[in-house]
């Protein structure tokens, strides 16, 4: 076995990185891929509340509105909370203070880097009404938060009205209640249905919490929030609401919607010029008014053309492209048109869009840009030709400033690259579970965007002739991102599987927003990560072509489910994640349409110090990953 660790001793310089010029068949579009998502179908949601409290002489009493649900979970969080005691008094007067016929005290580590554990009081079949919760702590303790989940399936949703969040431009956020079965429905529709059922937001407050800890108060008007950001960066809009369901039962809901406020974008003017690159390809040079804030963007468009069946989409083209001389470039391989039986007349770019390469936040859009007539390349399409249609000819390079290019640390082997996830302490895949040439990517305590993470792997990957990525958590996002958008040693790997991911938030995790607001578990040391929110993930996914998805194998896990109680992986994330989940990622979100769904296995959690063992320690799965992984 050859094990190499990531040695990042190198120079900081602008490094040329080859990017793929993506091409996708119309069947990808028919499946809903490569299209900008509707933000009102994503956003954030919660069926829990977070109630801040302040101790007076070491204790406090909090009134908690509890609706009808199967289980009430009460988790006080704060400095020293492992030493606190909690009593919950039902409206009937019954007191719950520990293990009992209907109650259970559970403990669990709140997060890596946090001393001590949380103590959670779970109560079965809680009576609806106003509960009183008494928390007693150390006299030195000043404040904390009480996380409450009552099991009522009514959620508070928050969503961006437009995902394009730009400095100096109004950001609109919709709010609404939704039954659990409607949380993926358009927010307005779900809210209307809930409202028709009698549910309502009784009162609410909102604030925008920036990563540096500063806050902006926001006002809620008519179930809507609007603000105009004066700064860039990642912030979290935290909405605390008191809501009522159709039966008038009241509940607390706290929803955290992360936003990434972007610098001024390049703006499409609508002007496009064509340049024949070679026998097959035409460069579509889209004129932009360059704000000068970015040297590269994601650009993409559907290509429509007249032909059999009328004017129809014939392919999608896009990828990362430099912003140079007031132009961003899309490259059309005209074999797509020939394959569809088109003669090159009536060609249009539709749904043209630009996005930020790190946050995937849409920067600008244009509905239609006419290209006129294009000479179409005909002839049989060889395997090499097919690949060129999908990935380009390898002749586009971007300069990435600040990329750390390491000294070569080995002799150019073909490796299975094991990558940890977000903000890892380095304890991830056990190398001893793998045989042959294994490369252990190890760059700990980092808060990378998917693109930064992918480029970091790319950079270190230059030590190897070829490799596939075995990614845990965000390491999986990075591997898929790298394979989709950049040329790398992954393209030279041979074997069955190029991207194997485990516990990867392919469709995001609600935890990204919740824990960013709390500042714990999910990056207590590393900060907020927008790409792993539902919104960020939805935007990211819209740039992943079908051919890359098809080369991705995804596993998820969940906790061991016992029949006599509600189980979980993590004492806190259990309150915000839907089952099945691994303590960080919900199973549904760890899989993605078009990838190979390897199922959800019980008995394993996301990382160590959760209830079940870390999922990366599953020998059976690791054997399969090892034998099937391309090298």
């Amino acid at each position: 076995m050859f094990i190499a660790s990531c040695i990042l001793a190198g120079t900081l310089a602008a490094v040329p990185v080859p990017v793929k010029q993506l091409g996708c068949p119309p069947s990808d579009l028919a499946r809903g891929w490569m299209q900008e998502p509707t933000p009102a179908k994503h956003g954030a949601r919660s069926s829990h509340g977070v109630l801040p409290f302040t101790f007076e002489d070491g204790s406090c009493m909090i009134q908690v509105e509890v609706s009808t649900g199967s289980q009430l979970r009460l988790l006080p969080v704060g400095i020293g909370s492992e030493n606190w005691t909690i009593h919950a008094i039902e409206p009937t007067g019954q007191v719950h203070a520990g293990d009992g016929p209907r109650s259970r005290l559970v403990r669990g580590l709140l997060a890596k880097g946090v001393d001590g554990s949380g103590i959670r009081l779970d109560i079965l079949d809680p009576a609806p009404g106003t509960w009183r919760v008494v928390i007693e702590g150390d006299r030195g303790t000043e404040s904390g938060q009480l996380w409450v989940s009552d099991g009522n399936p009514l959620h508070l949703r928050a969503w961006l009205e437009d995902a394009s969040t730009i400095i100096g431009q109004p950001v609109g956020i919709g709010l609404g209640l939704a039954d659990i079965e409607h949380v993926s429905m358009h927010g307005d529709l779900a809210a209307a249905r809930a409202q028709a059922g009698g549910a309502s937001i009784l009162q609410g407050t909102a604030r925008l919490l920036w990563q540096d800890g500063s806050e902006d108060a926001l006002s809620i008007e008519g179930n809507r929030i609007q603000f105009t950001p004066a700064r860039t960066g990642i912030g979290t809009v935290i909405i605390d609401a008191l809501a009522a369901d159709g039966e008038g039962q009241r509940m607390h809901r706290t929803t955290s919607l992360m936003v990434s406020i972007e610098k001024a974008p390049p703006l499409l003017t609508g002007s496009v010029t064509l340049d024949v690159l070679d026998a097959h390809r035409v460069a579509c040079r889209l004129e932009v008014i360059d704000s000068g804030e970015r040297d590269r963007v994601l650009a993409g468009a559907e290509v429509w053309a007249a032909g059999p069946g009328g004017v129809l989409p014939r392919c999608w083209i896009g990828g990362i492209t430099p912003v140079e001389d007031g132009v961003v470039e899309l490259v059309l391989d005209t074999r797509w048109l020939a394959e569809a039986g088109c003669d090159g007349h009536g060609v249009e770019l539709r749904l043209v869009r630009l996005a930020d390469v790190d946050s995937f936040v849409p920067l600008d859009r244009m509905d239609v840009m006419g290209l006129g007539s294009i000479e179409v390349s005909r002839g049989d399409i060889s395997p090499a030709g097919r690949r060129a249609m999908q990935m380009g000819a390898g002749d586009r390079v971007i300069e990435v400033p600040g990329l750390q290019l390491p000294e070569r640390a080995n002799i150019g082997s073909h490796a299975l690259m094991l990558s940890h996830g977000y903000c890892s302490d380095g304890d991830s895949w056990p190398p001893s579970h793998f045989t042959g040439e294994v490369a252990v990517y190890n760059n700990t305590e980092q808060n990378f965007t998917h693109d930064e993470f992918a480029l970091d792997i790319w950079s270190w990957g230059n030590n190897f002739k070829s490799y596939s990525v075995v990614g845990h958590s965000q390491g999986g996002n990075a591997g898929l991102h790298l394979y989709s958008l950049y040329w790398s040693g992954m393209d030279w790997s041979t074997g069955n599987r190029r991207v194997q991911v485990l516990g990867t938030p392919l469709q995001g995790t609600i935890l990204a927003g919740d824990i960013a607001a709390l500042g714990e578990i999910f990056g207590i040391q590393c900060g907020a990560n927008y790409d792993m929110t539902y919104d960020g993930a939805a935007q990211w996914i819209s740039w992943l072509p079908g051919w890359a998805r098809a080369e991705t194998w995804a596993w998820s896990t969940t906790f061991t489910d016992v029949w006599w109680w509600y189980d979980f992986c993590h004492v806190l994330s259990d309150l915000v994640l839907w089952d099945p989940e691994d303590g960080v990622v919900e199973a549904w979100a760890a899989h993605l349409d078009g990838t190979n769904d390897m199922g959800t296995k019980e008995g394993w959690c996301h990382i160590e110090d959760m209830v079940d063992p870390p999922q990366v320690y599953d020998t059976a799965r690791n054997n399969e990953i090892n034998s099937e992984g391309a090298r």
Partner: protein
Amino acid sequence: MMRTSSIAILFMATQAGAEMHCGSGPAAIPDGTGSVANWMIDVPEPAESQVITSARLMVDITHPWVGDLSMVLTAPGGISAMLLDRPGMPNGGWIGAWGCGGDNIVCMFDDAGSAAAEDTCSLDEVPVLGGNLQPKDELTVFNGFGPGGSWQVMVLDHSPIDAGSIQQLCLVLETAPDCNGNGVPDGDDIDGGSSEDADGDGIPDECQCMADIDGNGSVDVSDLLSVIADWGCTSGCAGDLDGSGEVDVTDLLAVISSWGECN
């Protein structure tokens, strides 16, 4: 079978008049040890003085990562040409930091090739270097030298991990006579005006004993008498040695200046 067929196709593509000489040597290419695989190709000395007018090399090598390989062709006189120098390196863009990772070389290195071998790479094509490809150094460097002797092809695998072997290496040479040994084909000498060809037989006059009219191997009194006998002749005259159309004193002087045994 496919491989033989590929070589055969390449050979079929050689021009008429070319001669192919295949070599021998170790099949295995030392894998990243710093040692080279040396193949020798023996080309017999031609019966008459010849010079190379075109050199090409047919290569059939199996290797899973051609970006590891360098190849040098050296002529018997020591002149060398780099054929391949780790294609795709040092900065192969999309190809990556380790050069072209494609499999196998079944190609003809030919200055007139359709593409430069150094710049040819594909994720899908096998062999990745196929057809007629331009070598890194032009093979015209061998033109004008004699073909005979032992040619050497050195194949170096710079990097371990991926190992390969030589299936066959064949030199395809086109030659032309060079009777005066000046390194220029006779025809070029004549066309270029550096040699006369009074009798139009394609052989420079300096290579021929023109004054030996009776062909007895020496210029002697009988040839002198032939000139005198033809004196003043203006048509079909054997004594018109300079082809001026008239037998005159110039022809007489040519006999005198060439007096003796022909070289």
